[in-house]
């Protein structure tokens, strides 16, 4: 579904990708694991086109989309949920969803407001509330719902559980598993192994701009030395 090969990106002074490679198969949850500053966010931004890759391929459904404008990549069926949420604070919940709306895709049941409110019940009662006046957890749900309105076949989630209360984190995990059940491919950038393990099928560990290990989630959990060297737990 999504295959990243030798991705290089420059991003300000701090984060540079030195040839990131990994692949996500259709319908699976792939977790991109790494510390702060390892290059997770830059990888996702490079895939969606917000950072123009300096080199490398981003094959989505067999087409190389590297270097495309972000809106073309999004229309091709890649959804992106940013780390800092970037909801439209002045717009209501319903309007935020409207901005994300794209035509339905063959083979996928189109997302509607009603279906999204079923997935995130908290949002239903807030339909006409300006998004800026919601809690962090509600905003996180809205930003995912907004991206889903574009009916993506693959969704890139950048640390959706970060800074949320544990009970909301659990809901978030439920939502990710529900997406998987719908047949949506999920690429999840995460530094919390605990959360990653609760939803992930496979993991790719990223460190200073390179993927240094990838394999099944269970294998990572069994390898204490690997975890100690590259993740903090």
């Amino acid at each position: 579904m999504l295959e990243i090969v030798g991705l290089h990106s420059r991003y300000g002074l701090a984060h540079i990708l030195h040839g990131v490679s990994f692949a996500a198969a259709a319908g699976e949850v792939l977790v991109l694991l790494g510390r702060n500053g390892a290059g997770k966010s830059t990888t996702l931004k490079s895939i969606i086109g917000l950072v123009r890759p300096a080199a490398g391929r981003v094959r989505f459904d067999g087409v190389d989309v590297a270097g495309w404008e972000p809106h073309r990549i999004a229309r091709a069926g890649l959804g992106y949920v940013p780390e800092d949420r970037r909801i439209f604070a002045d717009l209501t919940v319903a309007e935020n969803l409207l901005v994300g709306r794209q035509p339905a895709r063959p083979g996928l049941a189109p997302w509607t407001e009603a279906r999204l409110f079923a997935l995130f019940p908290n949002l239903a009662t807030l339909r006409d509330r300006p998004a800026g006046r919601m809690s962090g957890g509600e905003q996180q749900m809205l930003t995912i719902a907004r991206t889903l309105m574009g009916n993506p076949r693959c969704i890139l989630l950048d640390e959706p559980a970060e800074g949320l209360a544990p009970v909301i984190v659990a809901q978030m995990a439920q939502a990710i598993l529900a997406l998987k059940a719908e047949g949506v491919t999920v690429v999840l950038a995460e530094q919390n192994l605990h959360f990653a393990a609760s939803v992930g099928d496979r993991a790719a560990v990223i460190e200073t701009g390179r993927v240094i290990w990838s394999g099944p989630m269970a294998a990572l959990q069994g390898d204490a030395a690997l975890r100690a060297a590259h993740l903090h737990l």
Partner: protein
Amino acid sequence: MTALRASGLHKAFGGVQAVAGVSFAIGRGEMLAMIGPNGAGKTTCFDLVGGQLRPDAGRVMLDGQDITGQPPRALARRGVGRTFQITAVFASMTVRENVQVALQAHHRRFWRCWGAADAGFRDEAVALLAQVDMQTQADRAAGVLAYGDLKRLELAVALAAGPRLLLMDEPTAGMAPAERTALMALVRRLAHGRGLAVLFTEHDMDVVFGVADRILVLNRGHLIAEGDAAAIRADARVRAVYLGGP
């Protein structure tokens, strides 16, 4: 001896309580870490202590004097130094000139309109750069430094004013693991050697548990735990909201 005491700090942004009643103290020569999930109020706490924000309620005392709500430039004069989460150096200057400007600011020379600036405090600047192991790069442009070197330059700039209290907001973010430990070990040497009080935030627990004398844990604007590394590791609430794991 207490260098800084913050008591009952409150700050709200548009109805959201970012910091709700946080109190803590730092002693001379102490390394105090502040940890917690994103959005816990760490940066807000920093800005309240560093003068970038004024608290809605509460006091900040430096060496027994009330400094609540004073602007950063006044705090700098009283001996509060700071490094930033997003590295900020003077990009149009060389590494040495960055430190020279800080020295000129510290000695209140910045209204002098005559005489070449790059001739003043040269030796002092090089000496400070040597402390952070940057003397060989003194004549490079600050704008093209590698990330770890930027962080060390920032430290030298902050040290130029001879601070009594140093605030470091995520000092090692974006650095390689080996570099992180080296930088914070250097800060620890300076703190213990000069009696410098250091308050820092950090996401890397190796660094926190490795160098901090004491650790504060913030969650949703509240202080939920305080103690040394062993106590924090064992604290059930901290594991639940931040450290994770069984």
